[in-house]
């Protein structure tokens, strides 16, 4: 699980203030939802990221936000096309195999669901995605195109047509009922995951139907 492989950076774009999409050439197979360890140099810090691109794409996309005091992301954001990035083998089991499911994400927690959607697993899925601003609803256009009315963006600090104004937790609380028959997959910060899980359980969903991926 060490970041001992190198890849060429194809691009590294700032897609929202402080949020980047790192793209490098794919040289391995993976299952949508899996994670990979990323680093810049062999002696520096490495971190785990969910892959955000489709499993047939030519490149691998990593969505990250820069923590100015962090040991990795300031250096990661400085990578330019042609530079090397370090990565591990892919691993992890946050994999959705069901035909029907609800996906719930906030912020960069969209990555595994974006990967699933871009890998062709979006049929039969409902995606609830929260971001502070429209800019932070990463992949908004692509997800909207793929999922249509099954894509429910929630924007807490901006109001715009087609989006619920509020957090994903507010949206869930506003629902009279939820689908208790399908699994719910969650990805986001610890606070978001715990709050969403509590709401789902309160609304009658069995905890066995909640699968969560956490940031750490």
């Amino acid at each position, binding site marked *: 699980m060490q970041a001992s492989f190198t890849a060429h950076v194809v691009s590294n774009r700032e897609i929202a203030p402080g949020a980047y999409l790192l793209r490098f050439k794919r040289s391995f197979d993976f299952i949508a939802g899996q994670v990979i360890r990323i680093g810049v140099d062999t002696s520096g810090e490495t971190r785990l990221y969910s892959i955000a691109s489709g499993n047939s794409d030519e490149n691998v996309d990593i969505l990250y936000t820069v923590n100015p005091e962090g040991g990795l992301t300031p250096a990661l954001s400085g990578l330019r096309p042609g530079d090397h990035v370090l990565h591990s083998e892919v691993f992890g089991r946050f994999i959705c195999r069901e035909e029907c499911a609800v996906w719930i994400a906030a912020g960069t927690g969209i990555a595994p669901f974006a990967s699933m959607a871009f890998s062709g697993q979006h049929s039969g899925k409902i995606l609830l995605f929260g971001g502070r601003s429209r800019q932070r609803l990463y992949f908004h256009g692509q997800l909207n195109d793929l999922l249509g009315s099954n894509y429910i963006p929630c924007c807490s600090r901006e109001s715009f047509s087609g989006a619920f104004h509020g957090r994903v937790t507010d949206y869930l609380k506003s629902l009279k009922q939820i689908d208790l028959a399908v699994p719910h997959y969650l990805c986001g910060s610890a606070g978001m995951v*715990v709050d969403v899980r509590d709401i789902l359980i309160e609304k009658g969903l069995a905890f066995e139907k909640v699968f969560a991926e956490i940031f750490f």
Partner: protein
Amino acid sequence: MFGSTLKELTGIAAELGMPSYAGRQLAEWMYKRHVADIGRMSNLSKADRKKLEEHYALGNSDPVKVQTSVDGTKKYLYQSVGGRFVEAAYIPEGKRHTLCVSSQVGCKMGCLFCMTGKQGFQGQLTAGEIVNQVRSLPERDLLTNIVYMGMGEPFDNLEEVMKSLEILTEDYGFGMSPKRITVSTIGIIPAMRVFLEKSSCHLAVSLHSPFEEERRKLMPIEHVYSLSEVLSTIREFSPGKQRRTSFEYIVFKDLNHSQRHVNELARILNGIRYRINLLRFHPIPGTPLASPDDESIEQFQAALERKGLITTIRRSRGQDIYAACGLLSTKGQQDKKLQ
């Protein structure tokens, strides 16, 4: 300065033009004599003490609140940097006096059964803030054991936890035997590997189900680091006589104590030197999980022992003051502060 290793203290001394042995003297004053005031470090020259006071503070503090359980357990509340709060639980039991320390404010791991997880993550504790929970404990001189089982996942704060372990176990520090210290993890493998390589302290792993499919519904970490990989890593390090691995197993009503669980535990723990600690689940608000009765836990233990598995039933301690396993939380203090 409190929470600095000997190497760091020697660096501080050099930076201020103090003698090379002053680092060890500083360690002695802080970690053995437990002084809370640089002015009382009487074997340092007055000029050196003045320089230290100008550039550094000790940075330790006393608990701001204590609650005492009917069973003698005490829960101490500490205010850390930035007005955040953490708790530590002191658990006296016969000749054994255990302190359960926190390593983070809140936790990122989101385990379904844990009260700390419900408050989310607010920050990392420094080594000084971890060791300060020991230093400032009124019962410090009675302590026989320290367990890193309070708030937070220790291996999500590896660097500071390793520093704190060095200070607690090295001769220049508290000089405790590593056999008296246990660090508990849910199984963050890369950090666990560093710990197994560099520390002689005991390891405890939160298990709670031998089946990965069940465990991932209780503990999201299973999606990233699976139990089978955690166990393979433990086997790889073959702890030997010095180190014991214990597996913490919270028993939930009608969930994880069937014969099927007994059989699978026997299978997966084969070849590991271990002990299983069975703990009753302590219900938390809004949980879908329930606590089993005593008889169920005893039957489960008997079934495990028939398979040759070494088990202990851990008594619940401090449940009336929310100091028992899985109940520590400072969400209330954090919320009050935000208001």
